[in-house]
């Protein structure tokens, strides 16, 4: 590669050998990652577009796989259950965004100060985030017990017995909200850390200057903290939204999409189509749609960040 860049006569010979050695070393260092990405990410990604346009079943059959064009997409878009699942994850997103990001923001504000036991406190608030979703399901599965589980007892106690026990996971009106609660509790820790870093990124001088100008704490918060956190807000909202659209584990374990399909999600719908009904082509079409949704959200983030010129 260097041969074209530099006239051979200029470089002393050992230099050229070193350049070549360096070239191969660099190739050797970057190749493992690129190879793995090519095999395990790019190939299945491209395959999913192809598979989505065939009638391929999960287990190979003697009949040849046929190209069916956009038939799978047409079927997905005419299946009411797909629209239900898309609406469900949208509903989930709308609820989980304020709960989870709000929790993350508030805890980050609490923790962003020099305190005794600072690391301990941060660690405690971060604990749910390192708890596996399966474990979270074990815990909240017991909390949600109907009719006399802990959460119902607390609700009953706080309302003085006015509110009847709620069938958290069994009532179609409540099931998705229950999933929101446990999801926000499990995941707010990461967003909290991102907010903490965002808060650390705001220069102290801005606060000092505002204070000298006589700005109250509330005004300092509104005119220094909030503008300084704008890119952080965008980032947090976007990753939470993307995460929300991929909702799967807690639903698969606790409700299997029920009751009455009130917690069916796009990924759960895809996995069911692919592995229970064995329609790989159809499931791939759903996965392509999921990718497009995530891509749109990511593009929106870029646009928003540009506008705030970060």
């Amino acid at each position, binding site marked *: 590669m260097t041969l074209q860049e530099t006239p051979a006569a200029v470089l002393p010979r050992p230099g050229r050998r070193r350049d070549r050695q360096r070239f191969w070393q660099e190739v050797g260092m970057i190749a493992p990652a690129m190879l793995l990405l090519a095999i395990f*990410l790019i190939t299945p990604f491209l395959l999913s577009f192809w598979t989505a346009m065939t009638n391929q079943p999960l287990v190979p059959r003697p009949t040849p796989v046929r190209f069916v064009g956009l038939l799978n997409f047409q079927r997905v878009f005419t299946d009411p259950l797909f629209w239900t699942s898309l609406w469900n994850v949208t509903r989930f997103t709308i609820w989980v965004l304020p709960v989870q990001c709000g929790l993350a923001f508030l805890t980050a504000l609490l923790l962003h100060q*020099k305190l005794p036991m600072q690391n301990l406190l941060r660690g405690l608030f971060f604990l749910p985030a390192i708890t596996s979703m399966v474990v979270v399901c074990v815990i909240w599965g017991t909390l949600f017990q109907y009719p006399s589980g*802990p959460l119902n007892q607390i609700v009953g106690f706080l309302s003085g017995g006015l509110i009847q026990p709620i069938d958290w996971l069994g009532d179609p009106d409540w099931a998705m909200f229950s999933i929101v609660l446990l999801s926000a509790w499990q995941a707010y820790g990461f967003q909290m850390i991102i907010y903490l870093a965002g808060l650390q990124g705001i220069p102290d001088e801005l606060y000092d200057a505002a204070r000298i100008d006589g700005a109250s704490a509330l005004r300092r918060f509104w005119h220094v903290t909030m503008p300084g956190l704008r890119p952080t807000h965008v980032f947090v909202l976007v990753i939470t939204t993307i995460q929300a659209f991929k909702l799967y584990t807690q639903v698969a374990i606790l409700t299997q999409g029920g009751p009455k399909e009130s917690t069916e999600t796009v990924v759960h719908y895809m996995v069911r189509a692919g592995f229970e009904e064995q329609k790989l082509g159809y499931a791939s079409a759903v996965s392509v749609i999921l990718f497009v949704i995530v891509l749109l959200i990511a593009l929106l983030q870029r646009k928003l960040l540009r506008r705030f010129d970060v």
Partner: protein
Amino acid sequence: MSDLALSQAAPLAKSRGNSKTGLRIVQSFSILLIALVMISPLFMLLIASLKDDRFQILADMGSFRAFWVSEPTLSNYKEIANFSGELAYGRYLFNSLAILVVTVISGLIVNSMAGFVLAWGSLRGKAILLALVVALYVIPQESIIMPLVVMMSRAGLTDTFAVQILPWVASPLYVFLFYQFFAQLPKELYEAAEMDGASAFRIYRSIYMPLSLPALATVSILMGIESWNQYLWPTLVTQTDYARPIAVAIATFFGQDSIYWDRAMAASVLMMIPVLILYLAFQRWFVSSFVGSAVKG
């Protein structure tokens, strides 16, 4: 001095040092109280796992007894900590640990080498590769999983450790995190080493790696948590006990007619321990580096 953005009480004057320290301790304890409420479900899990009577566990839960055990016993743990049979949670735990260790260590090496070349290498197509890595970051795991399962079963990898490790070693996110970390180190570092005749790999190994502890810690925690919590993928590619990770095994409790909450809780505590250790070991570097890099992405 960094202060709580909302706090009413943080006067500039340093002369009020004493009352300020007192205030800080009060603040600390109130925050501690909030933290304890937030993690009370975890504490409840631990306590319940030490109780013998399955029915008592549920009965206790609505009251303060959820946080107290008069006669702690390890019998639930003894029941499930086998290496074969129906409740082979010792084995599942080992499987998950093996997968985690191999994934994280190879991931650290593979992704950091690539990030290093992208930051300081002299390869021609570097900029294109970097753009590719950033673009690949958008693809969610869930949307490649269908064809990937078929690829893996055609390759005869179903029910192996390899199938749970190989696909997740290289990751656009971690390549990018390392790239970003290396790129912000001073240029002189690279040039000086190069003048001394060090090869690219040597510069990477002896100069850049020792300087990148914060990045290594961040990626270790993120990769570790990710690998430990994998659920969808292993349910699709494991069918027998042989390589089944603990997350999948715990979920099978929910498929049973009556859930053995006592065992499920003991298994859950077992599952929390390793990742807790990982976090404690690396948390010192976590906040500062994870975040600085993530927000700009």
